[in-house]
């Protein structure tokens, strides 16, 4: 366990030094702050648009970091040949992969927390400056704690995408890994369409394949509750738990798959 922690801490240290990651998070925070200006154009939908933009920016930036940094976790070490010195220490390949995954996940969750704080700060400013009449017109309070549920599921989605990127990067080129991970992300958001494709296509074979894909691929739609929380609707605890547990199983499967593939990989 100590070896995993050491590797994870190394990833975290490297990523907070990385200017690109900094830049992306800074960009997201600026985008959330800039939503104050954009909200002026929305005919009274200021709080809604700030929430929409804040949650969307957190998700997009988080997913971008998860994909591009997730793919580099293993491949960079192999390309730089620094993997040899790492593996010469008392670290197994499985511990190396798990440590890398946990390190980036921790970084992503810290980034997500920063973006959540930025969003709540902007909303607090709006809440503070709003008249009682304007406040009464909002569908949900500006500082609605239900948004934390959306952030929590975005966090689960980022963990899932990181695991996917890590898995693909253990056996394919960086370019192909990006393409495959983006593919999983897109298909994951089409899962409801895959489930009901029989209402669109006439071919039973195609419908069966699509339904099979629906069960094989992680359902990212279930992790998207942005619309519900923005409109002040409650999300059932059962939904939160079931979506998180299912995603956790996929994460465990992908990380385990990555350790198995990487353990068998010939690094010579």
């Amino acid at each position, binding site marked *: 366990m100590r070896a995993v922690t050491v590797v994870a801490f190394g990833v975290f240290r490297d990523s907070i030094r990385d200017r690109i990651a900094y830049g992306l998070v800074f960009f997201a925070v600026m985008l959330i702050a800039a939503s104050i200006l954009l909200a002026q154009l929305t*005919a*009274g939908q200021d709080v809604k*648009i700030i929430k929409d933009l804040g949650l*969307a920016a957190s998700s997009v930036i988080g997913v971008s970091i998860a994909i591009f940094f997730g793919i580099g976790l293993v491949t960079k070490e192999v390309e730089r040949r620094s993997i040899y010195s790492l593996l010469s220490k008392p670290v197994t390949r499985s511990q190396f992969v798990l440590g890398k995954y946990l390190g980036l996940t921790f970084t992503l969750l810290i980034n997500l927390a920063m973006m959540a704080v930025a969003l709540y700060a902007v909303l607090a400013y709006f809440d503070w400056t709003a008249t009682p009449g304007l406040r009464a*017109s909002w569908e949900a309070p500006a500082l609605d704690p239900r948004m934390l549920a959306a952030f929590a599921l975005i966090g689960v989605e980022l963990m899932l995408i990181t695991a996917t990127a890590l898995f693909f990067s253990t056996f394919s080129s960086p370019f192909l890994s990006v393409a495959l991970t983006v593919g999983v992300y897109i298909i994951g958001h089409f899962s409801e369409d895959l489930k009901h494709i029989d209402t669109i296509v006439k071919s039973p074979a195609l419908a069966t394949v699509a339904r099979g894909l629906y069960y094989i691929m992680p359902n990212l739609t279930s992790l998207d509750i942005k619309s519900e929380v923005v409109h002040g609707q409650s999300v059932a605890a059962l939904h939160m738990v079931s979506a998180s547990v299912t995603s956790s199983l996929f994460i465990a499967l992908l990380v385990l798959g990555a350790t198995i593939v990487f353990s068998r990989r010939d690094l010579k």
Partner: protein
Amino acid sequence: MTGQPRTTLRTWFALIFLAVGAVASQVVVEGAIQRETVAPTVDWIQSPQLMRRLALSFDTLLADVYWIRSVQYYGDTKLSSEKKKEYGRLFPLLDMTTTLDPRFNIAYRFGAILLSEGYPNGAGNTEQAIALLEKAIKEMPEKWQYLHDAGFVEYWWNKDPNAAAKWLLRAADVPGSPSWLRPVAAGMLAEGGDERTSRALWTELEASAEHDWLRQAARRGLMQLDAEAAIAQLQPVVNRFHDTTGHFPASWQEMVRERLLPGIPLDPSGRPFTLDPASGAIDVDRESPVFPLRRSGTMPRLTQ
């Protein structure tokens, strides 16, 4: 050592020269080239369902973008100097907005006002306004406000009290709806529509509006009613002038001189009413915020 400052000076000189040259060139080119403007109004994706799928998990954010576009499109068209104002894209934009975010309350309620508002201040298309509200009712059957708004469009713009009463009675059946809906509907069915019922509808809309924009629209409606009432009082005075003199007054000043009016009559927004010397018809000024009144009449149907 000695060459370095000269190089720096040259570099600065080149930088300033290039900056001035680039800006000057842009100004010259801008004036010289008469470029054919590409219609900025092309919607590359016209299917709301396709757009919803392409948006992945960012459909509500995209709905915000389309809502901003709807409001800007309406504002640009309304304020344009073109004689024939074309609101044809307003409904597709609102349809896209509400498909991307089916619970976008203001897009339904305010969108219906923009669509039904009399031409040229709005699209003057009550069918589309009702269609948008029906979409909202299907999505959120628990909200009586959309049924009320549909009744309002029928009553105010379509002048159909029976159809309006049906909507209001449906609204009254929604659990949690206010108790005044049923009496107002009964009033419509009994009287076939009158100023008192209109005033009650506008007043209740103002009270139930969740947003300032809706409240302002309701206040404007009440002002229009006041303007109509004022015209109803002024018209007999103008007619009396005609009966006495054999011609309609050339201006309000003429009537003031004849001591028929204490001063130039103003509409509720503070602008003088217009008076047609040929027919004696009174109306609100085209520049008035309360223009057009329902009796002004010009509401061409726009087809999609």
